[in-house]
């Protein structure tokens, strides 16, 4: 056990920090969910990152990475959040599909998709859920019927983040006619610009169109856009979801930076008589530390050849609850001004606490509702009967 960074890791941190100091836009980019302009500004930032070879540092150099270990990735993330750099518009690609491609993709698929992903040339959306398949993901009905060397996609996907402006999407489809539940599913990649794809935005509870429905009507995609073996989509998808929840979905640095700002907010605006809020501030900081330590332990285990199991479900519960508690504490500090939108003339200018609180509310729902995660922990980690 060694909880100090190597000189190489320290040098890496310095390099990341220096580069970000020179390149992070001084002015905050417009949201990538609100407008095409904001989206494209984030794509430009992805290209800037890629030009600096920072698109996804753990990837092999040939795909645009630096071939560094997961600890270095964590260092990168720490510096990235410290620098308040733009949100990653391609997170569905680089953190979710990327690792899956790395594990299940053919050499051709990796060469085809990873560099374009790292470069920001292809921004990805996910297409997991369907109207009747939310927590019950295996209830997927959308189909991909084989016709020669193509699949013909039909169906209706929903809650697809980024889909309004993204270039590509990946999702589960039934490739076996009449198959049920987890059987007969395949993971298929498809361009959102293909004929027969229709995108319909869905507004979040604050009215921002951060999701979309994807309607697929006889969309033809070549067979080599299937990831993993035909009919094995469920296993591929579970690996993706496990990896997502276990490590990459939420960098600990995100919460550590938020907790640091929360401490600062309390120092400047907190009511010194408000014990409850002070305690909550300290707890948020401790929980963010605990989450970071846990992820360092996971990264160390993976680096030593270990795998991620059902304990990834514990991560998702922990960070989603931490995220809500942290932002709720910030709103408590802001008191009667907490409800103000940024457009209010007298709104505080101390960070996007309200917006981030709204975002945090989704945490216990997406990437598998926390109720499902608790089932997984109970059944797969603890061995309770189904």
């Amino acid at each position, binding site marked *: 056990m060694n909880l100090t960074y190597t000189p190489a890791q320290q040098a890496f941190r310095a390099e990341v920090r220096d580069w970000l100091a020179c390149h992070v836009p001084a002015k905050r980019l417009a949201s990538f969910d609100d407008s095409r302009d904001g989206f494209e500004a984030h794509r430009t930032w992805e290209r800037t990152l890629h030009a600096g070879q920072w698109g996804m540092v753990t990837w092999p150099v040939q795909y645009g990475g630096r071939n560094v270990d997961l600890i270095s990735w964590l260092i990168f993330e720490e510096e990235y959040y410290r620098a308040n750099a733009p949100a990653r518009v391609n997170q569905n690609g680089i953190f979710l599909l990327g690792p899956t491609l790395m594990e299940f993709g053919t050499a051709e698929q990796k060469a085809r998709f990873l560099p374009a992903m790292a470069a920001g040339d292809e921004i990805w959306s996910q297409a997991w859920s369907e109207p009747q398949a939310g927590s*019950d993901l295996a*209830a997927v009905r959308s189909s991909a019927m084989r016709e020669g060397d193509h699949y013909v996609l039909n169906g209706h996907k929903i*809650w697809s983040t980024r889909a309004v402006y993204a270039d590509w999407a990946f999702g589960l489809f039934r490739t076996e006619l009449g198959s049920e539940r987890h059987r007969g599913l395949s993971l298929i990649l498809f361009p959102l610009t293909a004929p027969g794809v229709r995108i319909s935005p869905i507004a979040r*509870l*604050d009215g921002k169109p951060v999701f979309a429905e994807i309607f697929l009507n006889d969309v033809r995609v070549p067979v080599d856009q299937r990831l993993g073996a035909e009919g094995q989509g469920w296993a591929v998808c579970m690996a993706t979801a496990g990896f997502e929840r276990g490590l990459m979905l939420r960098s600990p640095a995100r919460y550590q930076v938020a907790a640091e700002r929360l401490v600062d907010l309390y120092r400047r605006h907190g009511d010194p008589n408000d014990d409850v*809020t002070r305690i909550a501030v300290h707890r948020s900081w401790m929980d963010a530390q605990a989450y970071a330590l846990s992820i360092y332990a996971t990264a160390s285990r993976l680096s030593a050849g270990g795998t991620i199991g059902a304990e990834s479900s514990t991560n998702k519960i922990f960070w989603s609850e931490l995220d809500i508690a942290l932002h709720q504490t910030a709103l*408590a500090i802001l008191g009667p*001004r907490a409800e103000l939108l940024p457009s209010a003339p007298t709104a505080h200018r101390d960070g996007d606490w309200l917006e981030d609180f709204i975002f945090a509310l989704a945490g216990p*729902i997406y990437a598998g509702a926390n109720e499902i995660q608790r089932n997984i922990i109970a059944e797969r980690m603890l061995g309770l009967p189904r």
Partner: protein
Amino acid sequence: MHFAFSSEQLMAAEVTTQLLQAHCTPALLRQLLARDAAREDSRWQALSEMGLMGVLIPTDAGGLGLNETDFVLLAEAGGYAALPEPLVEHAGVAAPLLAQVQPGHPLLTAMASGTSTLAIGHPINPFVADADTATALLLVHGDTLHLVRRDQTHITRQPSIDPFRRLYQVDWRASDCTRLDGAGPSDALLDQALNRGALFAAAQCLGLAQRSVHLAVAYARERQQFGKPIGSYQAIKHLLATAQVKIEFARPVVYAAAAELATHAPHAAMRVSHAKLAACEAAELATRTAIQVHGAMGYSWEADVHFFLKRSLALHAAWGSPAFHRGRIAHHIDGQPLGPDHTFYNGTGHV
């Protein structure tokens, strides 16, 4: 000792609830937003015709001359419907304050009939709600109260996450002409107004909480996953049951606070603070639970539950932050006798 509402009070609440069920549906709320209108005049009129605006206005001035116990269920019904109009601030807080200061003030009659609306700028709140549609504003300058015509002020909208909150920063000039002279020091009057504001905010929170549970129950009975309604899963049941427990033990505190405020019980302020804390917690838990039960749908603009979440969020620090109210509780605990014979005012100490 009888801790229950009269049949008249229950009837008034029931009628109000039914009216709002018809005239304040989520669909109508969405229409109001689409029109970008400040209020739905027909709804305001319907509520006025029921006499709701005058509940706390003396009969001499055209009101019903009733008290907080009579109003608390109406405020709760307003929360249950996420009512956008300022029933509570106008009829629950501004009206009785003006009536206390100048029982014969001519504005009271127009207020009782709902033709004039009075907004209130209380020092505990940074903004004035619904200043734009108010005929006049009750404002504070130093230790004096002022009644100011809307056109004597400059107001700036402060948009809230709750699209139906119409908060304004008010710039105005105090003068002898605006000053309201009347009975009692303004401190005591403002404390009472704060207590009414906090009490009726608590009552609204009760309504928001209960509506959120009801919306979630309705959704959980319909929405199927893994071949059965999600409401048949114990996880969903227990989430909602836990929220309901919170509501059940906030409700009697809110009702007791109303009765004790109405009778000027010495510990009424403590009870109001307890009510505000308990009802806000219930609303927070119930609205969040309702969103979770709705899943992704609950996080969307489509489902109605967000209206209740946002109102709950807005009322959380209105009329005193939780820290303020906890401070009043602590003060009571530190200084007053606490035993079971002191639950109510004329406990054993007064036998």
